[in-house]
């Protein structure tokens, strides 16, 4: 299935559901189809933002929902609590996930579908789909672990996620980061929140100045200057 076909299907789907056909929704569709591999809603949002598309987070979320309903995307859950999506391009396939490095390998095995269907019927259900993942240690890691224990500093992705947590002051200029926690005093914390710097928001580090100077952040199209000492206390995913 190519993008053109997908657009057709999506247009048809939106019409049928009497949902509005907005250019933003198609932006999301396009970005989703072009995304290599699996992605979370936030990752897609960031990707769109990086391309300077004016799409809000809420639009991304509900468009993804619509795309899933129209069968253009498939929702995946790999056990780390985050929902991921992928374009429904290759027909049905399964995933095996490495517990060491989080690597996801795709494979197809028709016998699983048959078994699943049978199981559903036995339980008295009309079968419509299934969703499951296999877990294990990938060959590389199985070997490495057997040889030595020198994989220093490597964290289990299920615990920390693929991205690193660090202070905003340590992030490079021009990067969009997601705020995890604000550890400054109560007053600063509230001031920041009043300006929209709160847990979960995404912030672009627009400018950094040398010699522990302030950072210029962009949040909801507003520029806010934050001193270095405060930025040091804002932990972000970067």
């Amino acid at each position, binding site marked *: 299935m190519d993008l053109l076909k997908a657009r057709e299907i999506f247009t048809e789907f939106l019409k049928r559901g009497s949902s509005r056909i907005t250019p933003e929704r198609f932006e999301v569709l396009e970005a989703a189809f072009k995304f290599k591999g699996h992605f979370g809603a936030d990752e897609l949002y960031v990707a769109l933002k990086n391309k300077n598309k*004016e799409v*809000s987070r*809420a*639009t991304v979320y509900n468009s993804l929902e619509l795309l899933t309903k129209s069968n253009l995307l498939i929702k995946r859950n790999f056990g780390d609590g985050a929902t991921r999506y992928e374009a429904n391009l290759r027909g049905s396939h399964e995933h095996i996930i490495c517990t060491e490095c989080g690597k996801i390998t795709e494979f197809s095995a028709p016998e699983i579908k048959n078994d699943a269907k049978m199981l559903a019927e036995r339980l008295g259900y009309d079968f419509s789909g299934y969703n499951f993942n296999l877990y294990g240690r990938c060959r590389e890691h199985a070997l490495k672990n057997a040889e030595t224990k020198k994989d220093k500093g490597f964290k289990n992705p299920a615990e920390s996620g693929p991205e690193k947590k660090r202070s905003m002051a340590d992030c490079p200029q021009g990067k969009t980061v997601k705020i995890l926690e604000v550890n*400054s*005093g*109560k*007053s*600063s*914390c*509230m*001031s*920041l*929140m*009043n*300006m*929209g710097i*709160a*847990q979960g928001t995404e912030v672009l580090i627009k*400018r950094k*100045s*040398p*010699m*522990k*100077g*302030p950072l*210029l952040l962009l949040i*909801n*199209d*507003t*520029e*806010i*200057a*934050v*001193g*270095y*000492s*405060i930025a040091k206390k804002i932990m972000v995913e970067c």
Partner: protein
Amino acid sequence: MEFILIGQPNCGKSTIFNNVAGYKSIASNFPGATVKFTKGNISLYNKTIGVTDLPGTYSLQSQDEAEKDAVTYLINHHKDVVLINVIDASVLSRSLELTLQLMELSRPMIIVLNMMDEARAKGIRINKEELTKITGLPVIETVAKKGEGIKECFDKAYEAFFNPPEPKEVVYSKNAEICLGKIESILGQAEYQWPERFCACKVLEKDSHFDMQFKESLSAESYGRLHEILLDYEAEEERGAEYMISFERHAKAFEIFESVSRVGSREKKDFKLKLDNIFMHPVLGYIFMIMILYSGFWIIFKVGNLLEPMFLNLVANTSRLILAKYGTSGLTSALLTGAVEGIGGGVGIVIPYLVPFFIFLAFLEDTGYLARIAYLLDGFMHKIGLHGTSVVPMILGYGCSVPGVLATRILKTPRDKFITATLTSLIPCSARMTVIFGLVGFFISMKAAVAIYVLNLVIIAATGKFLSKAMPEVSPGLILEIPRYNIPPVKVLAYKSWFRLKEFILVAWPLLILGSVLLKSAEFFHLDSAINNFLSPFTIGILGLPAALGVTMLFGLMRKELSLILLFSALGTSNVLLKMTGTQVFTFSIFITFYIPCLATIAALARELNWKKAILISLLTFSLAIILGVASRFIVPFFTA
């Protein structure tokens, strides 16, 4: 009936206010320009109605003193008011967080979407009807700086008074609602001036002022129960309730924003966005800052230098005419000369420098560059124990120390406030600028005048360093919204400069004339020589200045310009160099620049800090002035030789 303008910082409340009430409130393009409320009147349908312009506040959970003032005013004025919630339409989502809190007050209220032009340029389209449907409040679109929609705004506010719209109840997430419900049922046991819902939210916000009220009005058992509910809620959410309620509002505001607006692409590439690549650049930014400030002062100096001799000649001729007519002896003649010199000093010396300065200051404020200076200097300010926000009061201090000292309200801790207030009173205000330019610049050289400014900055840095060492405490750091660039209309600059000039004419000038008359009558009764003799160990002994300057320095306490004007009459000539050496002129100016701020500033310091601190600052600046004066006396001759 009273209209109260309330909104987040830099959303244009003061601009709207000035549109209807005459220019009374300084409106600038940086957050926190208004630090105290301003009252005015508007006539509508043959009635005079009060309008109040409150300082901007991001939320009703106030953080600094200016915000606290706004909130206190708001919650204590609940009879016969209409709230006009001004919103910067280009940052609608964030602004709605305050709106949600105001709605909880359930008072007559309207929403004003200001800066619609900015929002449109950014491609934000807002569905007014939808916003009215969600909030239950009338919505008016305005562009205050062009005066668009202002009439309709106040018409709607008037209408809202007689036919109050019902703000819709804001519904938060299930957990929050359950908790709020429980709190409301307990608060229902007592009576409050505010709606229960509002009070319940204040419990979650842990507002100390309201907490006192609840403690007094509720039984110990109920009050205890309140805290149990709070603790349960926090345990469930694993976060402080005050954060949770903020999150709730944040989410709600975003939800409303999403449903009432669509964001398209920008109308056109805005060149203003590119400006910061230069002005906030880590290297170029500083070069431009120095260039902008230097050229500003250069223009002020040039304009002043051009006008000063013209006006001075005019004054000299007039006074000669008057003296010729009324004779040169007798008390009336002395008083007349005093009055003429006082009036002339204002016209001849002060106004030529003041007018270009005020225009330059208005330009800095209104373009939005002031906040950029704060950003650029943040790193440097950290070196002296403060942070970028302190730059704002200090720059305002270049205009006049009084608003500068008042502006320290935007700082959050008492320590930062004290240090910044001290440094602000050391900044050469426009009065001292006239002394520096009119005396040193005019009689010595422009370079020497600049040298005083540079020396002043060095001393300020050293004082800041010293004070922050003496009061070690971690400063909370800079959090400042950087406003968009704005090209101020000439009319606005003119109004604002006129507003400040008017203050000089109405307040300072009479003082100058009075001072001048007093000095002349003192001369007549030979009191001046008594004072000069008394002060001579100080003037001659320590500073090496002519004894005649003693009185002028004393009068400088009232207004710094007075020292300059009286200098001419004390010396009996307007060509100072006939009676004083270059070094003496320099030393005198240094002393005047640094010593005790004028009475008005001391009063402002006492009000913002306390009397003890105001006196402490006065003593500190006085000793600084002596040390520097003596240093100048002995060091400057080496440069001139």
